[in-house]
C-alpha cells in the first residue's frame, strides 16, 4: 500500500468526492487562492474551479449557515472553518440549526453537511489558537463527531462523512498533517461508531483519539519493555462512541485510562469514565483514570505548553500506579 501523509489522505477523499459527486462543493476561508491554511486544498481551485471551491469572507457564522442551507436544499457542502477555535463563531449555527433541523422539522429536512476543522495544541500558538473543543460537539445530539488519528482513518472516515445524511464535525489534529501511513489508493469507508483496537493487551486499556492516540500507542510500546501489556483503542469517532469496544476491552484488562489533549474538567474523558464504571463496575480493578490537558488557557512558551499537555511519561506513570494497586 502507498505511504502518504494525513494531509494527503484528506486531500484524496476530498478530490474523490469532488470528482464523483456533482453535489459536493467546498467553501471556507482561504481554501482557494491561498491553498488552505494547512495546505489541504492546495491546487483544488485550479483543478475544480470557483463553483466547486469557494473562497469565503472571514465570517464563520454565515459560511457554516450557508453550508447548512445548501445541504437542506439537497447539495453536499463541505465547509472548512480553518480551526476549531474559530468554530466558536459559528457554533450557534451548528448547535441551533445543523444539529436540530431534522428533529425539529419532524424529519422533513436533513443537513448532510461536513464541517472540517483543525484542532489540538502543541505548536505554540497561544491560548486563543490551541483548543480542543471536541467534547463540546460530542455533547450535542444530532451531530456526528469524527477525530481521525492516522492517514488511513482520515481518508476512510472523511469518505464516510460524505455519505452521512446528518452533519459531521470532522476534527483534524494540526500536529498530524505531516504524519505518514499506509493508505489504499482506491476509495473506502470506515463506519462511524467503530473504534480500532490498534494494539491488543491484557493489563490496561488506553483510550485515545486524534493526537492522543499516538501518545497512548507509544506509551504502550514502552510499557511492553517493562512487561506491562497495554491494549490501545483508537476511538475514531467520539459520537457515535463505540462503547462496545471500550467495554469489551475493559472487561478483559480491568483497567482503563483515557488520554486527551483537552482540559480535563468537564471534558470527554469524564464521559468515557462514567460509561465504563457504569457498565463494567464489577470488572474494574482500579478507577478509570484520565490523562488530560491541564485546566488552564494554553501558554505560549514551549516548555510550559508541553507541561500543560499529557505526556507519554504521564501515561506510563499512571499505568504503573494502577497496575500496582
Amino acid at each position, binding site marked *: 500500500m502507498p505511504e502518504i501523509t494525513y494531509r494527503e489522505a484528506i486531500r484524496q477523499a476530498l478530490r474523490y468526492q469532488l470528482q*464523483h*459527486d*456533482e*453535489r*459536493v*462543493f467546498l467553501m471556507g476561508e482561504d481554501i482557494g487562492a491561498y491553498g488552505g491554511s494547512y495546505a489541504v486544498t492546495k491546487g483544488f481551485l485550479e483543478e475544480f474551479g470557483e*463553483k466547486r471551491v469557494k473562497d*469565503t*469572507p472571514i*465570517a464563520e*457564522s*454565515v*459560511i*457554516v*449557515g*450557508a*453550508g*447548512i*442551507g*445548501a*445541504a*437542506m*436544499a*439537497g*447539495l*453536499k*457542502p463541505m465547509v472548512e472553518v480553518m480551526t476549531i477555535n474559530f468554530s466558536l463563531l459559528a457554533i*450557534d*449555527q451548528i448547535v*441551533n*440549526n445543523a444539529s436540530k*433541523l*431534522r*428533529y*425539529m*422539522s*419532524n*424529519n*422533513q*429536512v*436533513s443537513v448532510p453537511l461536513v464541517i472540517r476543522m483543525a484542532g489540538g495544541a502543541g505548536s505554540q500558538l497561544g491560548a486563543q489558537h490551541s483548543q480542543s473543543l471536541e467534547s463540546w460537539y460530542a455533547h450535542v*445530539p*444530532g451531530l*456526528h463527531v469524527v477525530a481521525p488519528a492516522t492517514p488511513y482513518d482520515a481518508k476512510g472516515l472523511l469518505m*464516510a462523512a*460524505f*455519505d*452521512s*445524511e*446528518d452533519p459531521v464535525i470532522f476534527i483534524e489534529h494540526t500536529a498530524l498533517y505531516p504524519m505518514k501511513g499506509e493508505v489504499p489508493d482506491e*476509495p473506502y*469507508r470506515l*463506519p*462511524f*461508531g*467503530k473504534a480500532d483496537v490498534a494494539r491488543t493487551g491484557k493489563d490496561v486499556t488506553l483510550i485515545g483519539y486524534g493526537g492522543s492516540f499516538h501518545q497512548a500507542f507509544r506509551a504502550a510500546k514502552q510499557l511492553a519493555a517493562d512487561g506491562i501489556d497495554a491494549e490501545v483503542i483508537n476511538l475514531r469517532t467520539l459520537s*457515535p*462512541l*463505540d462503547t*462496545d469496544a471500550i467495554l469489551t476491552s475493559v472487561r478483559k484488562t480491568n483497567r482503563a485510562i483515557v488520554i486527551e489533549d483537552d482540559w480535563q474538567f468537564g471534558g470527554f474523558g469524564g464521559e468515557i469514565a462514567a460509561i465504563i464504571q457504569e457498565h463494567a463496575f464489577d470488572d474494574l480493578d482500579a478507577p478509570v483514570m484520565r490523562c488530560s490537558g491541564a485546566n488552564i488557557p494554553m501558554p505560549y512558551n514551549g516548555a510550559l505548553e508541553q507541561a500543560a499537555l499529557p505526556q507519554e511519561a504521564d501515561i506510563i506513570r499512571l499505568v504503573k500506579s494502577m497496575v500496582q494497586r
Partner: protein
Amino acid sequence: MATRFISGRSDVARSVDKQPAASARDAAPGPIALLQTMMNIRRFEEKAAEMYARGKIKGFLHLYIGQEAVATGAIAALRGDDYIVTHYREHGHALARGLEPGRVMAELFGKSTGVTGGRGGSMHLFDISKSFFGGYAIVAGHMPLACGLALAEQYKGTNRIVANFIGDGSVNEGEFHEALNLASVWKLPVIFICENNLYGMGTAMRRVSALVEIYKRAEAYGIDAEQVDGMDVIAMHAAVSRLAAKVRTGEGPAFLEAICFRFRGHSMADAELYRTKGEVEHWRKLDPITQLSQQLIAEKTIKKTDLAAMQARSDTLVADATTFAEDSPNPPLDSLMRHVYQEPADA
C-alpha cells in the same frame, strides 16, 4: 452503543437533482383574495390567543395581528416553489403560503397531525412540500440558511429564489451583516424582507440602531433596497413582485423594508410597558384589513355583505382548524427518540 446508521452510497457518479421546470407563477391574486388571506390570518391569530388563554397552546406565542399585509402581499408575489425562510412570528407566512390551517393549529396544540408532528411548535413551522423551510427562533440565525438555500439554487442553475423574512431586531446582529455581505458578493437569489414593526420586544429600533432607515443599511452592501408601506397589501405585493423578478434574473439579492406594526404584545407575556396607548391607537387606524376593505367598498369592488361572507369564511376555516387540532391525537411517546439522525427507513 450501536453504530449509527449512515446510508451507504455506492461509488457511482452523483449528479445534482435538477428542479422540475419552473411552474408558471400562479395567476396574480386579486385584491379580494389578498383580503381573504389577511382575514384568515387575523382570525387564526385571534383564535390562537384564545386557545393560549385556555391552556391549549403553550410556550411562546407571537401573534402576527397587524402585520398581515406583509406576509400576504409578499408571498402572493412569489412563485409557489420559492423558498420561505422566516422568523418565529410566522403563522401568517405559513397560512399565506397555503399550509393547511388545521395542521398549523394542530402544531400549536402540539399534536401529531401538526405540520411538524407537535415537535416544533409555534416558532418552528415547516412544510417542505410547500417550500416552507421553517420558522426559526434565534434572531437573525436563519439568514445564513436563506443564503445557503439561495446558493444551492444558484449552483443547480434553477431560477427558484428565497424569501427571507426578518424583524427589525435582526439588523444589529452580526449575522445580518455576514449574510448581506455574502448574498451581495456572491449575487445570491434571495430577497430579504424586513418587517420593521418599530420594536424588537420592548426596544424601539431608534434606541439601539445607528441607522433607523434599515433599507439604507442594505444599500451599503450594494444591494437593491427599498422601503414600502407594510400596512398596504397591494403595495407589498407590487414591491415584492418587482424585486423578485429582478432577483430571479440572477442579478443578485434584494432587500425590502416593510414598515408595519404589531397590535398585540411581543408574546403573550408582554405587559407592553414600553409603548403608549396612543401609539398603538395611531397604528390601529392603519389596520391593513380595514384599509383594504374600505378601499374595495369605496371602489365598489365589493359590498358590505361580501365582507361579511368573507369574514364568515374565515371564521369557519379557523373553527374547523381548531376542531381538527382539538380532535387530533398527541404524538406517541415512543416517537421521542426518532429522527435525531437518519434512520434506515429514511434512506
